[in-house]
Structures are given as structure tokens and as C-alpha cells.
């Protein structure tokens, strides 16, 4: 246990603690930075509609929206007729201006109402109860998670030295001849790697969530299936969905941390370790399109590679893949930690 704690002490040196907290501050700042995303509808009008029809989805709400769509269509279709009537002095300017106001309103609402009716059809296809609420921020939050480059950089900086430091600083010749310097120390290092690889991403994800909730307000208890296109997910809340995804990502990063150890143990060179770590853990995100989606998500742990876990992903299979990969990386680490390095020593 003491050796395990010493490994944490080595990971979180004064310099590394500064890096870690600076990265957290950057992450929080980035969260508060206003993000503008494009939508096929107007979020402002959508929000107004939600103030009016928010709550449990009902047939009446659908009927209301359909009536509004017909009204909008009628207003838009009447434009040429109204313009002609005004030109022919059949209607007064006041009346035409009132029409134009209604027309512009209809024009601006059209896409939003179309989107709402699309949601109505989606809700009709769902088994259970559906709820209307302003979910644009949540949908954006989930679909624009992106590859966490900052987290990757912090993890590389903290975790690559766990083994690499022992080679490059020539501490390994002191450690290996000691009673607990072989398997026991290696296992403690791996445990520290896995735990840090899990805990640090969880801290980042929790901070991202906290900053988002501060900005977006509530809604976290609504079912994730209320979001358009999320019917494949189980009946869990938005918060549960986010934290399930965060756990899957953190588990994948934890396995990735063991891979970082294996890379350091094999190459025994800091620059090359960083290079190979980027190749193994960042570059698959750049070439995501070349893999069949499921293979990509399971084999490369797509969750840490930027997006929320897909509905087709079976989390039990994902966990099994993570365990198998972790076992392989642990064996590689154990083998290479004790392996002699010809020409180095």
C-alpha cells in the first residue's frame, strides 16, 4: 500500500499539480466561453414554444402544433394574394403591415414548428411517456463533446513518466535489485496508472458537467430518450446518461493509461514514448471514418475519442473489451519492466 501511495506522490509532483489545476481552470474557462452552434430551427423560438407547451407530451399539444403549422402555411401561401390586393388598393397599408408582421413571424417559426412536429412523430414512436422541455443545450452538450485534447495532454504528462522516469533517470538499476522492486513495484505502478487514468478524466468530466449545469440550468432529470434521435438508449435521465458515458470514457482512459505504461516500458525513451502515445491514443480519432463504426467504438474505445457512446454499443461488451485490453497491457508491462535492455544498461 505504501509503495502504491509513493507512486501517487511521484505522479503528483509540485510541477504536475500546477499543470493539473491549470488544465482544470482552462477547462472551466472553456466551458463558460459562449459557444454558438448551428441548428435547423431557431432555439429562441423553440424556447418560447417550450414555455407554452412544455411538460408531458399529449395529443392536444400535437394538434395545437399541427394547427399552427397550417396557420403558418396559410400565412405564407397568402403572400402573393395580399401583396396584389395591397397594390390594387383593395386593402389599406395598416392591414398589409399587420399581415407582413404575421407573415414574418410565420416565416421565422416555420422551421421550428416543423422541428417540433418531427419531435411529435418521434415521441409517438417511443414506448413510454415523453416530455417537452427546452433540450437544445443538452443536445448540443452531448453532440459537441469533441476529443478531449487537454485531458489527453494532462494524462500524457502525468502518466508517461511513471515508467519512463525510472529508465531515463537511471532509477531502475536501483529498484530492480531490491526485494520489492520487480513485480510488486510494477503492480503498484500499474495500479497508480489505472487509478489516475480513471480519476483524472472523471474530475474533468464532472467539472465540464458542473459548468454546463451552471449555465444551462436544469433539466438533468428528464429522460435522455426525450432528445430527438436518442430512442435507442435505456430509460435513464440526462445526468445518468452523461455519467454513464463519463464512466465508460474514464474506464477507457484507465485502460489507455496502462497502454502508456506499456509504451514507456518498451521504448524507454521519453520523446518516442510521447510520440507513440499520440499515435496510439490520439491519431485513431483523426481517422475515425476509415473504420466500421462498431469496430472503431469497441477496438479504439470510441468513447474517449470524442463522442458519447453510441446506442448500438453494449456497455457489457465494451467493459469486456476494456478488461481484455487491460490484461494484455498488464502482461506487457510486467514482462518489459524486468526485461533487460541490451545496450542501455
Amino acid at each position, binding site marked *: 500500500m505504501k509503495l502504491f501511495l509513493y507512486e501517487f506522490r511521484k505522479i503528483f509532483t509540485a510541477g504536475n499539480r500546477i499543470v493539473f489545476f491549470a488544465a482544470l481552470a482552462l477547462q472551466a474557462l472553456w466551458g463558460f466561453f459562449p459557444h454558438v452552434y448551428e441548428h435547423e430551427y431557431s432555439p429562441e423560438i423553440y424556447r418560447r414554444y417550450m414555455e407554452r407547451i412544455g411538460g408531458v407530451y399529449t395529443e392536444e399539444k400535437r394538434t395545437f402544433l399541427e394547427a399552427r403549422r397550417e396557420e403558418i402555411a396559410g400565412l405564407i401561401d397568402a403572400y402573393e394574394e395580399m401583396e396584389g390586393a395591397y397594390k390594387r388598393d383593395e386593402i389599406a397599408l395598416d392591414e398589409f403591415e399587420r399581415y407582413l408582421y404575421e407573415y414574418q413571424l410565420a416565416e421565422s417559426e416555420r422551421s421550428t414548428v416543423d422541428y417540433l412536429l418531427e419531435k411529435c412523430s418521434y415521441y409517438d414512436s417511443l414506448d413510454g411517456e415523453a416530455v417537452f422541455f427546452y433540450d437544445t443545450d443538452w443536445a448540443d452538450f452531448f453532440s459537441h463533446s469533441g476529443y478531449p485534447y487537454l485531458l489527453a495532454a494532462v494524462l500524457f504528462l502525468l502518466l508517461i513518466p511513471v515508467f519512463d522516469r525510472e529508465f531515463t533517470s537511471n532509477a531502475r538499476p536501483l529498484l530492480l*535489485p531490491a526485494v520489492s522492486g520487480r513485480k510488486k513495484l510494477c503492480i503498484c505502478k500499474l495500479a497508480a496508472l489505472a487509478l489516475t487514468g480513471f480519476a483524472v478524466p472523471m474530475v474533468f468530466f464532472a467539472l465540464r458537467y458542473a459548468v454546463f449545469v451552471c449555465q444551462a440550468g436544469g433539466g438533468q432529470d428528464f429522460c435522455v430518450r426525450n432528445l430527438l434521435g436518442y430512442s435507442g438508449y435505456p430509460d435513464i435521465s440526462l445526468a445518468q446518461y452523461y455519467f454513464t458515458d463519463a464512466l465508460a470514457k474514464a474506464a477507457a482512459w484507465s485502460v489507455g493509461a496502462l497502454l502508456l505504461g506499456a509504451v514507456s516500458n518498451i521504448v524507454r525513451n521519453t520523446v518516442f514514448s510521447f510520440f507513440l502515445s499520440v499515435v496510439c491514443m490520439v491519431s485513431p480519432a483523426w481517422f475515425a471514418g476509415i473504420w466500421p463504426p462498431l469496430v472503431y467504438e469497441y477496438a479504439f474505445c470510441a468513447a474517449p475519442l470524442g463522442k458519447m457512446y453510441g446506442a448500438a454499443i453494449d456497455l457489457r461488451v465494451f467493459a469486456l473489451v476494456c478488461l481484455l485490453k487491460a490484461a494484455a497491457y498488464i502482461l506487457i508491462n510486467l514482462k518489459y519492466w524486468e526485461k533487460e535492455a541490451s545496450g542501455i544498461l
Partner: protein
Amino acid sequence: MELQFENIGKTYRSRTALSDISVTLREGVYALLGPNGAGKSTWMNILAGLLKPDSGKITLDGKEISAMGKEFRRILGYLPQEPGFYPDFTGYALMKYFAEIKDVKAAEPKIGELLEFVNLSGDADRRYREYSGGMKRRLGIAVTLLNDPKILILDEPTAGLDPKERIRFRNIISSIGRNRIIIFATHIVSDIETIADQAILLKSGKIVLFGPIRSVLDSVRGRVWTLEADAREAEKYVMQHPNATIVKSGEHWNLRIVSGARPQGPAVEAKPCLEDVYMYWFEEHSLEGKENETVSL
């Protein structure tokens, strides 16, 4: 305690680092001498379990050390060339960490004693990165002694130290040299002349000479000469004997020459020192014909 090396060999690709090393060591301080690339570090690393020999075996009191595993590591202390400690740790924290790694029970009093012994008690709370080269070496020896090793391997421990620190280091080794096997690999012969019981001379991966210091010194008796010369003559002598040691004394130069034949001029036979042995066995011109010769004294 008997540490026996039997036909140890190690090759890196096409380069032979150690060849057919067979020697038996008992309690005492052994000076492992040889030029850079002689195979000293390879030998030390094999004994420390960092490298596997390609051939041969090492036994301690008849038991193979590779089979002894932890049992052997429990009595082993190894201070490598330029040991790497963690710069953010204090001296005391490093001692505690290595006590844990070495599985030393109730280490606190032992740590205090060792820090006192290497004269670092007052600096125990300073970070390792703030230590001078000598302090780092002394901390290294304290770390190495934590488990009270019966076999102590010191690989070039005095390299880079100033003369004062080297004397202090030698004194430490002298005082711990009882009831253990200490192997002190170096190419700085003055470091071990006064503290070693026996010397092992290693050249190109082979033992060329092994025996008690006195016998090793005797191996060059009658081959060490001193003479006094002026600047021009001194230059001539150096041309003939590139291994000559020259010290200026007033208007003249005192030369010390290691040579099988008496140099021309007023040369006087001198009492050999270990440096002469080193010069005789490792000076390039004098090696011809000695490459395949192993002398056990």
C-alpha cells in the same frame, strides 16, 4: 560466504562484453579495475540481476542466485553508476521510499543512523535536486546500505567527486568493509589502493589479473622506474614511454615510468603502486602479448 562466478559470458550483438569469467569471492573489499569498456558495468549488472549472462552461472554458497530470487536480493546492495533518484523527494523521503522497496522493517532508526553515518542528517529535509554531487553519492551509499547488504556492489561510485568527497567516501567504505563482499568497480585506482583487499583487473571482458593487493603490486615489481630530467630530456622520455607520469620539481621534471626494460639514463627502480599496475596492464603499447594471459596471484 562464498560468491562464485563460473564461466560467465555476455555478448552484445557482435561485441563480447564478458568472456569466460570464473572467480570466487569471499568477505572483503574487491577492487574491480579496468578501462572504460572493459566489462566492469556489465559484470556488476549481471550480479545485480539487471542483465542475464549468455553463459555460466553465479552461485552464493553453492546456490544459484537466479534461483534464490528475493532471498538473494534481500542481501544485495547495488549502487550503480550515476544512480537516479527523484529530484522532488527530500533525502529522508528517498530513504523511506527505498526502505519500503527493500522491505526493511521498522526502518526509521536505521534511516537516522545511516544519514548520520554519511553525514547527511542536517540535510535530510532538503530536496534531492539541491544536493551537491558528493551529497548525492553519500545518499546513494546510505540507500544501498539500508538492507545491511552482505554483497555490496559499487559501480564507479567516486566518479565526478572532488578530492575531499572522495576521501570521505573511501572512509565510509573502509568502515563497512567487514563481513561482507564489497565489489568496487572503478578506473580511478587511487580510490581503492588503501581500502581494497584484493584487485581484479579486467580488460576486454577478461580477467587479466586477480589477487591480493600486495601480490598485484608485486606483479610489476622491477618494472617501475623514476628518474629526473630536464625539459628536453623529459620530452624524449615521454616519446619513448607514453605512459610516463611527469611531475615538475623546480627546474627539473620527475618522471615515473612503467616498463619491462630499464629506461636509458639515470633511472632508479621504484616501489610500485596500484597506478603502476594499472598503467602496466592497461597501457596500450604494453598489452601486446598479454591479451590472452590471465594471472591469478
